[in-house]
């Protein structure tokens, strides 16, 4: 694994939704390359026909009954308690559409 190029860091930053300063990009490029070189040693292990492990419990599809329980639920007030940016019992978010779209 070679060194992570500036352009890759820039792209990753966008994927990760992080604003990175140019100084930070430089440091991260160096540090991430070092870690990737270290973890890259896994490449030499033979993993043909080996199933990947995503969890260790051996359990699957454990679902609770679909019933409403008061103590499983936050009230509207509780759910909104973490922010001041509230309008009519809704969270206020930044608008993501700037222009009216015209479908033809």
């Amino acid at each position, binding site marked *: 694994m070679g060194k992570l190029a500036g352009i890759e860091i820039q792209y990753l930053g966008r994927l*990760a939704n*992080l604003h990175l300063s140019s100084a930070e990009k430089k440091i991260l490029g160096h540090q991430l390359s*070092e870690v990737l070189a*270290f973890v890259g040693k*896994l*490449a030499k292990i033979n993993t043909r026909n*080996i199933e990947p492990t995503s969890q260790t419990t051996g359990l699957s599809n454990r679902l609770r009954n679909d019933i409403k329980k008061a103590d499983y639920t936050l009230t509207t007030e509780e759910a909104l*308690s973490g*922010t001041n940016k509230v309008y009519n019992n809704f969270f206020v978010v930044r608008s993501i559409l700037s222009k009216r779209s015209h479908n033809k």
Partner: protein
Amino acid sequence: MKTAPLTIKETQDGLLKGRFSAVDLVNFYLTRIQKFDKKINAYLTVSEEIAFKQAKNVDKQIENFREKAIEEKPLLGVVVSHKDLFLTKGVRTTAGSKVLESYIPPYSATVVQKLEKAGCIMLGKLNCDAWAHGSSGENSDFGPTKNPWNPKYVPGGSSSGSGASMAANFTLIATGTDTCGSVRLPANYCGLYGLKPTYGTVSRYGVVAMASSLDSIGHYGRCVDDIRKVFNVTKGEDGRDSTVIDGDYINISPRPKLGIPKEFFKSGLDEEVEKTVMEAVKVFKKIGFEIKEVSLPKSDYAIAVYYIIQPAEVSSNLGRYDGIRYGNGRDNFGPEARRRIMLGTYVLSAGYYDAYYLKAMKVRSLIIKEVSKVFEAVDALIAPVAPTPPFALGEKINDPLQMYLTDIFAATANLSGIASLAVPFKFSSKGLPLGFQLMGPRFSEYSLFEMASAFEKETGYTPRVVENI
């Protein structure tokens, strides 16, 4: 009161005999925190009002129901402090990060609720590496925690405040989380017992997630009995974490076999650490354990696997922090969180997923296979917790890879979902704590407790805290 008892049994005995009240205990701990925590930085929030309210309630129950009160609430009067990753209704929970600097959760974690129901008194919230990312406590956005045994040294991380508060006698028990040694390392560096339970025994509900396939909810105590008493309360299904089951726990074998995994004792291991573990082995041999050298060749790759899987899951879990519903925006993530988000995003991105993430998940399968095989031959493994004794503040902070390698002996237990108990034993030439870990198969907690208990008895180990800091 001059000093507080160091164990749950002594505390409850004292309460029953009227030697002190629960309010006295809270007063004692708060006075110590006020006096010494400026030097240690273990607490991010002290919940004084709640503590006094709960203490008064405890005193009332002891007065009215005596022993019956403790039979009903096994942890009655036990003062607990929570790692600041545990959501506490109405009490600020930061995860050690500026992103959640002023976050007040509207509900409590299952473990917090269970401990409260069992009679615990909550004293406050403990400092930790932000989002539990770290091995030294230095990655907290609220300043590093210091080791009470010597404040120039780190207490271990990420549950840094948990280890330090226990060593400083600020609290009777503390909670922690262990994704790759974050309970065991501070236990090891602060002279405590620390349990990383089997993945799927203790609910993660309401605990800020780090890497969901690895996170285990653990705790600290100053004797094996306290670890057991707390585990009796925290374990078990809550209907809110689908990984948790009321499993069948393994009993200790009549003649336990203890394995020494030779890969954990290779060059690079500090001499004092190695000597400590080997002395512990001698003690186990003396009390009738069969000692056997075993091999886990793939464990050499555990830390590399961990540093792919963990950042991948971190980048996904931290994706939810957008500053819209609660907390501050993503610009508030500190350098280590940013590093891990970037690394995780990379290993999950198209083009690199197969080479890194998928590969790591496959090697994880190989590690698990090896570990399962070893437990056909032995009942438990004994190993160092970390390659060195506590290191100095600042020593590794500018070298992320070196810091990551601190976790090299912790990773195997998390990747394979097994139980591990950190056991305190000796002190280094510099007067800093040393110990070892006992790893057992899934659901072997009670077997590990029996082993550690026998060791505790044989060595005449007594709990120790730092009186004057």
